[in-house]
């Protein structure tokens, strides 16, 4: 390619960053200007279409994160080409449309930015050859979609719709990631071009089924397949250009693209066939039915899109030349007419202030251009010759008729298409015919920016239907080749002779008209079934969220209870449990054996400590407890004296004294408080405490008995005097051998000193006063003894007098 694929993708992101600034500079016309990029890209892609059509494949590769198997490798074949053209071509129209649709909106610049970011991501998605790279772009489309659906961000409905779409698609994305990685693991490569060549090997791999299921979940969520379809109608909260672009023409096709892309590797098995066709078929029928029950133009279109996506999925599930051909043709046809109809719906909304089909009527006179575009698109959607929609529908009928279980599938397809034809009339014809009724805003024809898109898309549908040989054939063949993994050539023609498919088309049309006429009846019928909606997947989503919140709240209340003693208890029980169980099951318990060399004063001392400890625990007054604690401390110091540790003993004596002083200073004035725990709680705590004690005793016994190596302290005995010039080895260790410990230790001391001082002197936000006054006294007096009343100045400016 003349312009590298990476460059093409990045250009979208770069322009996205520049878009808000550009929009500020070029007031009003930024849409036209920005559209030049996708237009240019579209032309660039189109210029390579003949080469692709004749069987060429472009590829390029650069390393990105090879350590994790992520490379910037891209591949342009028929399928990518088809989608790239859609993405850039429709993208250009949408940017122009958005400029008109949201003219003067304060955040129009951001809309441009998000749209361009989306375009770049989507382009990356369809061009990526590395499956992780594909996933990167996949996620980026989810994020852009989130930001775009929530564009009208101050409305709660928009926010929750955005969240719904994000959670569903990103949730599917995670499944996809796992699936792709498993696929990569099974196939030994993360490059599509390699994976697609080893279908047989993959099919027999034990990881095939899990990876298939996970990948399908990803594809189904993105392409709004049942039971994940519900996010798409909600996403209609987005501004209409967004709905037209993301939620009809391109992003929702990502899942379809993925199915098509991977079908040479994953398709052709029973698991694939059953799951994909079933889900596709159900989605097709459900979407078509639900479309008819709506009165909001955008929601009708949204459900009909769901149905179309179901059809595409169904076709890809069937597989085989015919079905794939039909799928490719349908993909293009749908993008053209559905994009046009969405834009029409937006234009109607913009020009009349309503998009309720029941309140729009006879608008042809006021908005002839829009009406014409709408009419053509609607007829294409209804599958009327000679429009492109007719061709693609014919093909799908052909495919259905030759499928396994043909009767079922054909019946389903015809039913869905009848309903969709009626929906097409409702959206594209109904508002323009009949008697004109007053609308919230007086209807006027839209400015060019608002009809250009629909006109171009609708006419493309007409042109491609009439002259398929203009390039459509070649392109679709190349796409089909890419999907099937074997060369196919597609020749579309309006007239196949008197076939069964043609008859079905006729049935569809007649049925569609009948349904259209009796739509009131159907709506009444549907409203009676409306209560069924509460068992639908949208409700499941709500329940999951509710359940999640409940679970989260409950868990947090249980664990993060706020009670310090429960925290301690859990930590202690976990510790004792884990260490104790490990010691009991894997370790060697040591029996107490060393009773030798006991002196009576040893025993006396230990008994003294035990009694003082008990005294500390049981003391009824604070002073008694402090006194008992002091006894413990001093007697521990005696232990140190007995066993040759004069330095430790001395320090312990001094520290103990200070401790007692501190205790008295702090607690002397405070009143006694009653014991609050129940006897049950005391018993429980005693058990926990006892197990902790037993565990520690066990560990000490082990340490006294088990000795793997002689201790390193022998070194100090030898080197203390000659090398460290000291006889008191404890001190030598403290200041020399392990001086760093001591350095850290005095740092701890220093921090504690500052901390205590600050705790006692600094009370932010307690007393009212001025900070400057406090600071003055601090500066002037230079002493810390005045208790400083200090307020809570949030800002530091202006407090210097």
């Amino acid at each position, binding site marked *: 390619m003349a312009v590298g694929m990476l460059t093409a993708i990045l250009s979208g992101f770069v322009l996205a960053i520049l878009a808000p600034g550009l929009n500020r500079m070029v007031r009003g016309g930024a849409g036209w200007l920005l559209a030049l990029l996708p237009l240019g890209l579209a032309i660039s892609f189109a210029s390579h279409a003949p080469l692709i059509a004749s069987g060429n494949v472009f590829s390029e590769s650069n390393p990105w994160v090879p350590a994790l198997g992520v490379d910037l490798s891209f591949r342009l074949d028929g399928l990518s080409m088809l989608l790239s053209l859609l993405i850039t071509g429709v993208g250009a129209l949408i940017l122009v449309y958005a400029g008109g649709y949201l003219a003067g909106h304060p955040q129009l610049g951001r809309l441009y930015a998000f749209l361009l970011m989306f375009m770049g991501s989507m382009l990356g998605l369809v061009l990526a050859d590395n499956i992780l790279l594909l996933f990167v772009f996949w996620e980026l489309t989810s994020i852009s979609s989130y930001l775009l659906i929530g564009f009208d961000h101050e409305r709660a409905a928009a926010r929750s719709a955005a969240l719904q779409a994000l959670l569903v698609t990103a949730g599917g994305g995670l499944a996809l990631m796992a699936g792709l990685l498993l696929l990569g693991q099974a196939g030994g490569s993360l490059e599509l071009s390699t994976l697609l060549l080893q279908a047989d090997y993959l099919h027999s791999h034990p990881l095939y089924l899990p990876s298939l299921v996970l990948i399908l979940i990803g594809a189904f969520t993105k392409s709004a397949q049942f039971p994940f379809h519900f996010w798409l109608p909600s996403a209609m909260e987005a501004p209409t250009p967004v709905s037209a672009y993301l939620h009809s023409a391109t992003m929702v096709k990502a899942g379809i693209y993925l199915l098509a892309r991977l079908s040479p590797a994953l398709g052709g098995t029973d698991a694939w066939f059953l799951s994909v066709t079933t889900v596709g078929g159900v989605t097709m029928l459900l979407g078509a039915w639900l479309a008819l029950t709506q009165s909001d133009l955008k929601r009708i279109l949204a459900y009909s899109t769901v149905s179309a996506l179901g059809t595409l999925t169904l076709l890809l599930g069937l597989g085989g030349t015919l079905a794939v051909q039909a799928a490719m043709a349908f993909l293009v046809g749908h993008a053209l007419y559905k994009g046009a109809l969405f834009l029409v719906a937006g234009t109607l909304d913009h020009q009349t202030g309503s998009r309720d089909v029941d309140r729009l009527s006879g608008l042809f006179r006021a908005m002839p251009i829009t009406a014409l575009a709408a009419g053509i698109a609607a007829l294409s959607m209804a599958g009327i010759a000679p429009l492109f929609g007719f061709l693609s529908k014919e093909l799908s009928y052909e495919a259905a008729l030759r499928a396994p279980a043909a009767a079922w599938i054909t019946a389903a397809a015809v039913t869905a298409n009848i309903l969709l034809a009626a929906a097409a009339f409702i959206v594209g014809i109904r508002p323009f015919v009949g008697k004109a009724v007053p609308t919230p805003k007086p209807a006027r024809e839209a400015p060019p920016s608002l009809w250009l898109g629909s006109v171009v898309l609708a006419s493309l549908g007409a042109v491609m239907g009439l002259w398929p040989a203009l390039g459509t054939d070649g392109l679709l063949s190349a796409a089909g080749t890419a999907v099937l993994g074997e060369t196919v050539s597609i020749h579309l023609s309006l007239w196949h002779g008197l076939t069964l498919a043609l008859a079905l088309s006729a049935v569809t049309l007649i049925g569609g008209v009948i349904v259209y006429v009796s739509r009131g009846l159907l709506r009444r019928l549907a409203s009676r079934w409306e209560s069924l909606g509460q068992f639908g997947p949208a409700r499941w989503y709500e329940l999951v969220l509710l359940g999640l919140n409940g679970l989260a709240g409950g868990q947090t209340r249980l664990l993060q209870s706020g009670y310090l003693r429960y925290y301690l208890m859990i930590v202690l029980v976990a510790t004792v449990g884990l260490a104790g169980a490990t010691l009991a099951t894997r370790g060697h318990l040591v029996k107490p054996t060393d009773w030798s060399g006991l002196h009576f004063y040893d025993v006396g001392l230990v008994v003294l400590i035990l009694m003082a400890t008990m005294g500390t625990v049981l003391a009824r007054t604070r002073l008694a407890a402090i006194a008992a604690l002091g006894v413990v401390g001093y007697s521990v110091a005696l232990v140190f004296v007995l066993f040759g540790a004069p330095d430790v003993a001395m320090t312990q004596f001094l520290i103990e004294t200070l401790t007692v002083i501190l205790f008295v*200073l702090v607690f002397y004035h405070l009143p006694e408080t009653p014991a609050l725990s129940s006897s049950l709680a005391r018993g429980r705590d005693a058990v926990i405490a006892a197990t902790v004690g037993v565990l520690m005793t066990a560990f000490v016994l082990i340490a006294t008995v088990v000795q793997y190596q002689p201790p390193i302290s022998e070194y100090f005995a030898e080197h203390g005097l000659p090398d460290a010039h000291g006889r008191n080895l404890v001190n030598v260790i403290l200041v020399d051998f392990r001086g760093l410990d001591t350095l850290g230790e005095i740092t701890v*001391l220093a921090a504690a000193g500052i901390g*205590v*001082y600050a705790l006692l002197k600094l009370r932010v936000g307690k007393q009212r006063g001025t900070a400057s006054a406090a600071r003055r006294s601090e500066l002037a007096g230079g002493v810390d003894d005045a208790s400083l009343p200090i307020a809570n100045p949030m800002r530091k400016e202006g407090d210097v007098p």
Partner: protein
Amino acid sequence: MNSLILKVATRFMLPLLLLFSIFLLLRGHNQPGGGFSGGLVGASAFVLYSFAFGAPETRQALGVDPRGLIGAGLLVALGSGLLAFFVGQPFMTGVWGQLDVPGLGELHLGTPLVFDAGVYLVVIGVTLSIILPLVEE
């Protein structure tokens, strides 16, 4: 705690205890003692003093801010460790010199002793900046 006896006794005790604390510090390398115990004894001298005379008086007797002592102590300790770099040794390597003192013989002087002095200062500074505000409360 406003007992006269305490006050009088404390006035005598303060210099004695301080001397003792320095003694502990200096002999610590060879006999029980050292920066910690020395510092703690020194600090208790002032703590005792504060019981007798109150915190402000004690601060005056001390002459310097306790936090200054902390900073100075840290600086001394750290500096003694850094000195080793100047003789091309790893951090905290002892640098020793000999001093001939008439009557006492050879004295080994080294950075570990300086380090211990830093500890001594920090201990006094910290203990006092903990106790004095509490005494004031």
